[in-house]
């Protein structure tokens, strides 16, 4: 019979969608913060690569809390790079022009790499300033 031969796993309705996969991530973050302090090594966890439910993500965000800095990047859709309540841990969300979440990371870093200006871009800025001054 059609559906009978397909294993059905009955999930009791009304359970909150916590999978239990989020708490171990806190340990993982602790390890990464240690590495950041000891060796200055920044790193990231790709949240879309992990089996996390929306409830898990909400739990994690809630636990990590909100920090002092929130960065918004406007580049082909909005990205947010927000410090959590644990300094050195950043919650990074990339959205496309339609506003859909494309990828999501937790970064352990003093400053997320994406926030820093690249020397080549700074050079362009310098040239622009110079051209403005000579045009005055």
């Amino acid at each position, binding site marked *: 019979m*059609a*559906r009978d031969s*397909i294993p*059905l*796993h009955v999930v009791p309705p009304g359970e909150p969608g916590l999978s239990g996969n989020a708490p171990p991530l806190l340990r993982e973050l602790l390890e990464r913060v240690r590495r950041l302090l000891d060796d200055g090594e920044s790193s*990231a966890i790709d949240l879309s690569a992990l089996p996390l439910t929306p409830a898990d993500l909400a739990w994690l965000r809630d636990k990590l809390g909100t920090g002092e800095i929130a960065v918004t990047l406007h580049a082909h859709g909005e990205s947010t790079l927000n410090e959590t309540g644990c300094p050195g841990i950043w919650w990074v969300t990339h959205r*496309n*022009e339609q506003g*859909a979440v494309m990828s999501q*990371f937790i970064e352990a870093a003093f400053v997320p790499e994406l926030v820093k200006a690249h020397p080549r871009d700074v050079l362009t800025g310098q040239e622009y300033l110079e051209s403005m001054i000579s045009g005055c």
Partner: protein
Amino acid sequence: MQGSLIDTLARQGVTRRAFLKYCATLASMMALPPAAGRAMAEAMAAAKRPSVIWLPFQECTGCTESITRSHSPTLEGMIFDMISLDYQETLMAAAGHQAEEALRHAMKENAGKYLLIVDGSIPLGQDGAYSCIGGRSNVDLLKEAAQGAAAVIAVGTCASFGGIPKANPNPTGAVSVSDLVQDKPVVNIPGCPPIPVVMTGVLAHYLTFGSLPELDDKKRPKSFFGETIHDRCYRRPFYDQGKFARTFDDEGARQGWCLFELGCKGPVTHNACATVKWNGGTSWPVESGHGCLGCSEPDFWDGGGFYKALSVPADPLKFVAASSVVGAGVGAAVGFANRASKNAARSAHETTTLADLEK
């Protein structure tokens, strides 16, 4: 191209951060570690653009549409800045003899190094006369072009598996690229049409690591085709609870329950729609209330009807077997699933009638 890719992109208004962000997302979609996003960005920004020859065979141009029109200005379009697209009939300005000359030139100049992209199946009937370009049959052209290629990328289900031209009774004798090309690496990017980011991912991987990504047993990149639609479907909890929509407008459909009984082929279909979605992440078929057709699997057109529930366990390897099961002994299984055994399919390739839709 003058200067690095980054400079070219900057001229088009794509900033460095936008590029980095895109690479981070691409790496994530390809299940590469986050550090790979940065490596990809660096490698691609500095890469020498590989020559790409794109041959369209027996196809509807839907694949080209999917890939070139994916985003308003240029995110997937950026890929065309990463490669030197030396021949693409639909996009190139040259036509006629000029175009054929460009093809010959690109093949000679980059012999052994170019990437060959193919969309469309290859008809073998009547000595290949069913589809010709510049007086030469597709099969001839493919064999010649594949000889000098570093790798062949079959875009779309037609090039990957024969697709709709190969549907029963396959009047033109259509075959897939890998049926004909056996001595070169072949990557299949099936889908009707294929998801654009898979194409970008394969090219980005090639530019970054100098190699093709890991493939499954049907030559599809594992990072995008490793899981079934069903594995990642947001309606999955309803399937697990046994809550099914039974018509397209019943209470279950309104509640967003599982579309299995309405013929969803998600359990046996490997593709990334459930995670990558379509139209810039707007939605995807199941989210729009329609079951998956199984378009990235071989012979999806002959799977026994889009609106007939699957009759076999959700085992991905059984897809081909499933269609023959339907053909052989359609009895109880399909009949039960459709609750209308009188309408049970008599053969694997019956016509879908209104009655099938209404069930």
